[in-house]
């Protein structure tokens, strides 16, 4: 082992260089500390969310899951609302008064365009005149009426525009499907009833070609010609009869479309003598 002049290991003495290391270390430590923490710039603080409180929305401060729901009109509800507060289902329904020769009867109907409405054949049969009124009591002048030969359907055209008209559905409703019936049972006030499709059956009255639909939606005499609507407000059938056990019978949409597509299927209503 080699030794230095003072008899110490060179590594311990270092030939006079050892005292410089702590000084340099201390200097470096000081400089680093100065640069890092002591005299360096203070790191920026998190800024405020905005310059003024008013710029912050209340939703930013209130958790969404516990925020009280603001009162609003549901989109489905708003889409159907009219300025007078009636929804489209009510606005498209009409009341039909059949003034016959010494007889009087009422039925229901619904608009399919601005001047055309659909009802049952037996609603407009044997009439000397037809009188149509809307949900709000306005009377509409009738221009013409014609009945279909193969189904208990009739088309009435009006001189005055109808308030509203729905869209026809895409297909016949299936069993279990929810339906809404809007009409004037017993010739009384406009009524909306709910039900569901039970199934299909042969027409017990032989008034229609093919099968008809059975629903449990409550109907009464005077509901004939009422529209049966699906949940989207589209027409899926036309009420034409009521069974003894309280079920309602519908002319299915497919039959309606088939009859409407055939312009020759309708003949003008012959007034009673």
């Amino acid at each position, binding site marked *: 082992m080699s030794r230095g002049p003072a*008899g110490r290991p060179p590594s311990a003495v270092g030939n006079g260089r050892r005292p410089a290391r702590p000084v340099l270390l201390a200097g470096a430590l000081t400089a680093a500390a100065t640069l890092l*923490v002591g005299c360096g710039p203070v790191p920026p603080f998190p800024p405020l969310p905005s310059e003024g409180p008013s710029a912050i929305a209340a939703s930013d401060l209130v958790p969404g899951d516990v925020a009280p729901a603001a009162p609003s009109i549901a989109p489905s509800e708003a889409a159907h609302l009219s300025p007078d507060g009636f929804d489209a289902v009510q606005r498209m329904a009409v*009341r039909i008064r059949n003034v016959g020769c010494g007889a*009087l009867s009422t039925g229901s109907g619904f608009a399919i365009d601005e001047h055309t409405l659909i009802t049952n054949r037996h609603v407009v049969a044997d009439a000397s005149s037809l009188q149509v*009124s*809307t949900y709000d009591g306005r009377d509409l002048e009738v221009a013409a009426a014609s009945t279909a030969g193969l189904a208990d359907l009739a088309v009435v055209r009006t001189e005055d525009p109808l308030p509203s008209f729905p869209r026809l559905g895409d297909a016949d409703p299936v069993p279990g499907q929810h339906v809404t019936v809007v009409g004037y049972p017993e010739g009384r*006030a*406009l009524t909306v009833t709910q039900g569901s499709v039970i199934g299909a059956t042969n027409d017990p009255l032989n008034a229609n070609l093919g099968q008809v639909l059975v629903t449990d939606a409550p109907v009464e005499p005077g509901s004939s010609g009422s529209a049966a609507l699906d949940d989207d407000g589209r027409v899926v059938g036309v009420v034409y009869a009521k069974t003894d056990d309280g079920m309602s019978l519908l002319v299915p949409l497919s039959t309606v479309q088939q009859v409407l597509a055939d312009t020759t299927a309708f003949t003008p209503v012959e007034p009673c003598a």
Partner: protein
Amino acid sequence: MSDERPAGAAPVPPSYAPPGHGSGPHAVPAAAPHAAVAEAPLPDDGAAAVRRSRRRGRGAVVLAALLVVALCLAGYLWVAADRWRQSSDAWQEQARAQGERVAELESQLSAASSELAAAREQLATATSRITALADEKAQLGDENVASQQYLDYQRRVSEAAGVVASALGRCTSGQSQLIEYLRTPERYDPADLEQFGQQVDTLCAQATAANESLQQELQQ
């Protein structure tokens, strides 16, 4: 270690030692067992003094550095605390303002909800009333039509009654005339009397049938 030092090593000059530290010629030797060395300071004493001096110097430098670091750190902490305090005050002020804003909005929301509920109730009442009025109008229309039809019926019945009464009157007149003829039958042709009597019977039969129909209609 000093035992290993060579005898011919050069002593450290006394002036080399720092004053006031007792490391000069009168200082007690570092190694007490070596009494002879105490009278003449060994070169190791000077080196030790130098090392102690250097250690003190280094200590002073380290302490100074630590002091600087501590001062800088304290300054930083003071600045940081001040800025955090300012930031906290700003946040608290903004939170308070937002809280007031939220309270105001909640109050407005509550008022709007109440107004909306009232408007909805009024709308429902209005639509129900409109529906009821439309129904009343429709019923009045039905009653009007029914009354008109009843009046038409009554008019037809009255007309029929008039026709029946007229026919019965003609029947009665014919029968009276026939009775008059039969009082003096020799004045008339028997064939003519027979024909007249048949005509009166036919007329009376028709009048009676019409009257029976009218009575049946009135009984319905």
